[in-house]
């Protein structure tokens, strides 16, 4: 639908209520309103609204993913139905066959295998392919750079629409030799990035992002925002959460919904905040996230995430962890972040524990267990592992259940180290002299034998 300016989401928020989403997917409301509603929230995922955020192939992949991971049959069927509809609009028969198999005739006669449609699409595809090939050959003989480039580009689009991602990638890369202006290069890079993300090969993504950013012309803000999103996704996949957070936080608000084939602005906000919470320290968190005016636009789209980060910064850990818990089930349905959710959550929890104990000399573990909504025994175990990893400098008084901060005595430690180093030096030199002596002896023996 038409992308309404998202700068008045607050009004929409107030109108719909901040707390949640209507459970019934009312299809009469405009898509813009749906785009502005909090989609990623603690409530059960509204599939139609969620799917509305995306377009193209990623929409279908996400729907299939949700269907795969959701145990709720009704939601499964809903997702598959939407996928089917979307696929019918496109030309990807392979994915179509997959979805039909998954539906397994559960949705009635309208949603069964439409072999005729498949055959027609395939035939049309072959025809188009032949046409493109002949055109490309013609252009190649004419050696007109621009038309060759357009020819390969069309090929790439064609393959992409039909799901042959490898061929699409190759075609896009071939246009590189015929690019004349920076615009062409950027177009090539963006296409390559799109295909690589779909294929899951994020190393290509990083290289093409850097290639696009190196063009001599200044990039327009939407393109640079897109490139930063792509870079952030690549870092996320590589588990480099700090870099991913930085990239996501730099995405400008101009992105809007223009990158719907890859990522929605809600995702930018969520990924950015989660990675930042897991990897930034307090100063960075304040500067880059909370005081970041540009990012605030994204945060408004996901108010739960915004609350989350404010709670963390102001040390209301119980509510922060509660929000996290609520979000978890929906985050597990997201194709990019689902296998990082556990790690990120653990890191955020450890950070919360460390931050809690940092300013105190002694902490009553019972109160701390309440603040973190866990039992004292469980808390003790967590603290023990953090202390063993040397992330908290403290000791546990297990009898009275108190945590005492402990700062190593520098003077004693230095003396100990000095004595130890002295002993080690002594030993090293003595053994070295002995070995040298042995070597000399052996060498003399050999020399004397020769003589």
């Amino acid at each position, binding site marked *: 639908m038409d992308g309404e300016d998202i700068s008045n989401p607050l009004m929409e928020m107030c109108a719909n209520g901040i707390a949640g989403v209507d459970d019934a997917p009312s299809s009469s409301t405009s898509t813009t309103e749906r785009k502005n509603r909090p989609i990623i929230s603690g409530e059960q995922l509204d599939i139609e609204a969620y799917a509305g955020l995306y377009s193209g192939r990623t929409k279908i992949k996400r729907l299939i993913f949700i269907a795969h991971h959701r145990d709720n049959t009704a939601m499964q069927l809903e997702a598959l139905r939407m996928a089917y509809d979307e696929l019918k609009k496109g030309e990807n028969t392979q994915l179509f066959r997959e979805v039909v198999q998954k539906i397994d005739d559960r949705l009635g006669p309208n949603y069964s295998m439409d072999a005729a449609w498949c055959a027609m699409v395939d035939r049309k595809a072959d025809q188009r392919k032949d046409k493109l090939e002949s055109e490309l050959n013609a252009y190649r003989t004419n050696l007109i750079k621009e038309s060759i480039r357009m020819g390969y580009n069309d090929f790439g689009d064609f393959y992409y629409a039909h799901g042959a991602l490898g061929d699409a990638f190759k075609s896009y890369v071939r246009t590189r030799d015929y690019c004349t202006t920076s615009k062409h290069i950027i177009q090539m890079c963006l296409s390559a990035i799109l295909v690589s993300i779909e294929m899951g090969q994020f190393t290509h993504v990083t290289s093409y992002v850097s290639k696009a950013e190196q063009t001599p012309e200044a990039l327009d803000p939407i393109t640079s925002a897109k490139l930063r999103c792509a870079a952030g996704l690549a870092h996320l996949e590589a588990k480099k959460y700090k870099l991913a957070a930085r990239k996501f936080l730099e995405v400008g608000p101009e992105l809007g919904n223009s990158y719907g084939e890859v990522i929605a602005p809600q995702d930018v906000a969520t990924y950015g905040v989660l990675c930042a919470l897991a990897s930034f320290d307090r100063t960075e968190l304040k500067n880059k996230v909370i005081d970041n005016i540009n990012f605030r636009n994204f945060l408004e789209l996901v108010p739960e995430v915004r609350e989350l980060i404010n709670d963390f910064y102001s040390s209301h850990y119980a509510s922060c962890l509660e929000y996290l818990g609520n979000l978890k089930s929906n985050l597990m349905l997201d194709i990019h972040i689902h296998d990082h959710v556990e790690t990120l959550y653990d890191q955020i929890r450890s950070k919360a524990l460390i931050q809690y104990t940092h300013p105190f000399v002694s902490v009553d573990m019972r109160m701390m267990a309440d603040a973190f909504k866990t039992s004292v025994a469980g808390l003790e175990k967590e603290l*023990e592992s953090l202390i063993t990893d040397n992330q908290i400098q403290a*000791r546990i008084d*297990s009898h009275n259940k108190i945590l005492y901060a402990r700062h190593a005595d520098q003077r004693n430690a230095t003396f100990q180290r000095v004595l130890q180093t002295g002993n080690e030096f*002594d030993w090293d*030199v003595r053994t070295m002299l002995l070995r*040298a*002596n042995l070597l000399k002896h052996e060498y003399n023996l050999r020399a004397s034998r020769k003589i």
Partner: protein
Amino acid sequence: MEGLVTQIQGLSGTASDVLSLQNLLKQADDSLHAESTRLPPFLDQLDPSKHSLGYLYFLEACTAGPVTQEQASSFVLTIARFISSCVAEQIRLAPDKFISVCKRFKDQVLLLEEPLRGVAPMLTAIRKLQLSSEHLTALHPEFLLLCLLSKCYKTALSILDEDIFEVDQPRDLFLYCYYGGMISIGQKQFRKALELLHNVVTAPMSTVNAIAVEAFKKYILVSLIHHGQFPTNLPKYASSGAQRNLKTLCQPYVELASSYSNGKIADLETYVEANKDKFESDNNLGLVKQAVSSMYKRNIQRLTQTYLTLSLQDIANRVQLNSPKEAEMHVLQMIKDGEIYATINQKDGMVRFLEDPEQYKTCEMIERIGSSIQRLMTVSKKLNVMDELMSCDPLYLAKAGRERQRFDFDDFDNVPPRYNI
């Protein structure tokens, strides 16, 4: 024979006489050996304290052949008396003979199954043969062997405390360090044992020998006991043969070390049970058991880093002991050995871990640091001296000169490329 005796008696006065006597004796050596059975009465005519060199030659010839049981004990007495009364300078002129006499002495003492009789004489023998306290003789390992067999470890420690820098025969060093390691283990001085065994394992050797293999097995176990871990790779200065082969030759021990590093006592104990025969055949079972019990210690030590107070029940659970009583026994033992600082409150069943009370402020500590510094300065000076000596050594210069590339005719070095001595 009698003529020889008179010559010995006459020429044992001054140093130059002794040198000429030595030449005579060398020439007469074969005839002495030929008439070994007739020699014992002549020994009575010679005085070991004045005619040490001659007495030595005679003694060596006497003991050369096979010895019967009865002869053995009389020889033992004679040799012991000789060792205690001989003159050091004279016997140093014929060290090989002296060494072979002492070795035969050791054999006879073992034959009589009274190794204790040999300990003191051997100690005196070492002192007389050594050129300096840093010198390792062939007698050192024999001495240590006698100490081991007679279980008087303390006497051995006085020898072990001296640092060795000069070695005649590498084989002596290997045996010396190996026996020394065993004695130190017996005295529970694991740090010293580790040092000695480390010397064997990393000594330069062209092929791996059996002593190094046995030493490596013990080295792994002592390293586990003392440090709680075993470095999987030998340091780079160990010989390449050792680095490649030692681990494959001592496979069960290496696996023991890796199972130890996993931290699960139950697994460790099952592994030990399964391979008990191998350990027993190497006589290492006692050491293995010590390694297993050291694991409990290490786990308890780790607890002192995270807890201020802990109940005995909790300790038992975390360290995988069976009951709080066992935990109490372990903690008590560790407090007594000075490995941790803690107090046990039996009423609550709580253990309170304390910090190391050493404040590094006492006079003793200052003295200790001062003496450490002095020692290190001496060692460092020694290193410099050795470096200088080495760089003047003609053999070294020859080799360095040979391997130097000549880049330019104008590049005229002081060391010619072929340096023939």
